[in-house]
């Protein structure tokens, strides 16, 4: 019965175990996986991320230069980040905030200047 006395006294007179959120916020850990970000200018729309994603929340359309993410399906595993050949995907440390309307994140980039441009020049 008295075994709990010391933890209880410590808890009673010590600092609270919880934080006074939102006034006091915790530093995110260096490796924390918050949400997925893309640098659309670097994307070549190869679709690798879409093929590797385990939760099928990505949709890449090469013809329209469109990269679409359903952030509410994404499990933030980071597989796409590892798979991307141009390293344009990254995970930031900030967790998603609540929203009123769930919307897909659609990014339209520039069509990759590769073979077509090379042909025109020739």
């Amino acid at each position: 019965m008295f075994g709990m006395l010391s933890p209880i006294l410590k808890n009673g007179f010590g600092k609270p175990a919880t934080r006074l959120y939102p006034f006091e916020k915790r530093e995110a850990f260096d490796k924390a996986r918050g949400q997925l970000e893309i640098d659309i200018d670097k994307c070549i729309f190869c679709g690798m991320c879409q093929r590797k994603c385990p939760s099928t929340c990505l949709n890449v359309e090469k013809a329209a230069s469109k990269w679409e993410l359903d952030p509410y399906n994404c499990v933030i595993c980071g597989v796409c980040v590892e798979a991307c050949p141009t390293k344009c995907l990254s995970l930031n440390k900030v967790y998603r905030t609540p929203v009123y309307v769930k919307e897909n994140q659609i990014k339209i980039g520039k069509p990759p200047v590769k073979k077509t441009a090379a042909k025109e020049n020739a």
Partner: protein
Amino acid sequence: MGDRRTVIPFGPQHPVLPEPIQLKLVLEDEKVVEALPQIGYIHRGLERLVKVRDFNQMVFVAERICGICSFQHAMSYCLSIERLMNIEVPERADYLRVIWSELHRVHSHLLWLGLMADAFGFEAMFMETWKIREAVVDMMEATAGSRVIISTCQVGGVRRDIAPELLQQIVKLADDVQRRVKAIEHSVLNDYTIKKRTVDKGVISKEQAWKLGAAGPVLRASGVKWDARMIGYAGYKYLNFEPVVETAGDCYARTKVRFREMFVALDLLRQAVAKIPAGEINVKVKGNPEGEAFIQVEQPRGEVTYTVKGNGTKNLEKMHVRTPTFANIPAFLTMLPGCELADVPVLALTIDPCISCTER
């Protein structure tokens, strides 16, 4: 005789059950004479997803079979695929797998202890154990990036490395958790109320436990010295540990086994950090799985088995998971007849039920 019997539904929604399972309890006065289980409330059909997800993506599906032993599910799946494809995992990855597994075991047992204390109405203990657990979960976030479902396992190794400073922090955490758990040891194991409610309740003999196919702490609390880690999968082959065994087979023995297992897990963490070699953390996987493989892994709740069958394509043909709670349900149903209605919640908790993984 017959008209004195009452049937009381226990669950699917019940204060001690975080997940839905129903027991139809046939009572005579306050005594349980029979219990009929009804499972299937949260079947998700995860095993069938092998048809639509390739074998690498399935790691993340396996991980989501159970929230609490998530890393061990992912690891079991990866181990079975690696066995199928004859993949040698680098030694460092083996050690990292042990570290994350044991962190999961500690946090799972602390969570269980909190829930158990909550079922007794011992709120101070509930808060205390969950406070300790918070430090373990924070460590998981610091090392892997997520708090519970850490997504660090992959076929062929692990996806993230742990830096040397963080490894030292893990040792510090192990010492700290050990000290804090020791501080509550006396209150858990010698408390009059806890003993009153657990000693000689739900006794399962050694023969019964073995015959009914019980797993994990339920089996070991009845005196069977069997822990799947003894097989030496992943990094356990490099480490020394003694399985925790009790002989009484009652709720108190199961509590004691889980409690002492935390110390074993913390010790394994220290050993793993001391011995971890430098080197690669994963190998490239080529080809598709073909053939059949089976693996046993010890989770916090007991032994899980994975059977996978590949047919040379990127999708597996079949995956079958037998989870520890599923194995413990027959033992649980044997414990129930003869107990008082008020003891049923405590009995249910001492098998540490995880219904989500049972139904997958």
